[in-house]
């Protein structure tokens, strides 16, 4: 094959990619092999190490991202839970406030009703008391007038004879 290559090269430029000197192929192949050797022995480990490092970095970053994602999801979950609790608490507070307001309204209504009842009862008692007092006053006044009139009648009718009759009646009463 080397001879065939020398033959072709000896023909001169033939428009094909065939060097005119076959040693060029040799040196080129040698150079290639040297370069390839260094590439395989020195370059490839470095590239492999770099790739491995890049891969491990990528994996680490992915893990970190996953962790960050997990953390974020956990935080989101916690925030959601807290938000849920907050919502529940706010709903409970609102419910309690509504209940308190309702109770307050009921209490206020009850107190108002009680106040009205008390005032009504007091008014009725006052009316009864006023009636009673007025009746008592009227009775006392009538009694005073009646007794006064009776006293005047008795005094005017108690002449000497009447006085003596009363005295005799008294003395007789002592004996009985």
């Amino acid at each position, binding site marked *: 094959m080397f001879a065939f290559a020398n033959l072709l090269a000896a023909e001169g430029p033939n428009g094909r990619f065939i060097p005119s000197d076959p040693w060029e192929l040799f040196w080129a192949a040698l150079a290639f092999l040297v370069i390839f050797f260094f590439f395989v022995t020195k370059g490839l480990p470095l590239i492999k190490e770099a790739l491995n490092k890049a891969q491990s970095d990528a994996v680490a970053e992915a893990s970190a991202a996953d962790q960050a994602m997990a953390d974020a999801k956990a935080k989101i979950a916690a925030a959601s839970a807290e938000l849920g609790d907050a919502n529940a608490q706010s709903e409970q507070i609102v419910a309690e406030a509504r209940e308190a307001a309702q109770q307050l309204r009921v209490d206020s209504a009850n107190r108002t009703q009680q106040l009205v009842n008390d005032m009504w009862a007091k008014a009725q008692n006052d009316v009864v008391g006023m009636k009673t007092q007025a009746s008592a006053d009227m009775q006392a006044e009538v009694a005073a007038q009646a007794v006064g009139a009776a*006293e005047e009648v008795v005094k005017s009718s108690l002449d000497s004879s009447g006085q003596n009759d009363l005295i005799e009646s008294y003395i*007789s009463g002592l004996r009985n």
Partner: protein
Amino acid sequence: MSDRVQGYADAMFAVATAEGDVRGISDELFAVGRAVDTNDDLRSTISDARIPAERRIQIMDDLLDGKARQATTGLVSMVVAAGRGADLGKIASALAEKAAQSQGKQVATVRSAVALSDDQRNRLADALRAKLGTDVDVNVIQDPSVVGGLVTTVGDTVIDGSVRTRLSRLRESL
């Protein structure tokens, strides 16, 4: 009752006993005492230390002139001269009490709107004796506020038959 009032009553009783007319003198002094108790002007006049004793005695002498025994007038003058005219009513009551006790009797103070006749007084005394079981001396106080009837007080016992009380009961019942 104070010792002073009782002392004057004891002295008056001794005088009345000496005069032999305890009942008469006691009755007159009781009437005078009643008059003093019911007349503020008279009571203040005969107990006013600024008025000379002779003047106060003269006032009482004029009031009793011809209406009371000489012994009664003298006893009243004694009390007035001593400046105890305001106590004359209490002294006369104590004297009446003592006079009655000396005879084993009690004093019955009778209030009446009109004066009682001697017959009524005697029958009243008899009735009270029958009712209370003890002899009584009746002292009558003429009191218009009684209106009619009598109110008798013997010790702590009150027998009220007055028109005033009946009217009061009527007022209370009405």
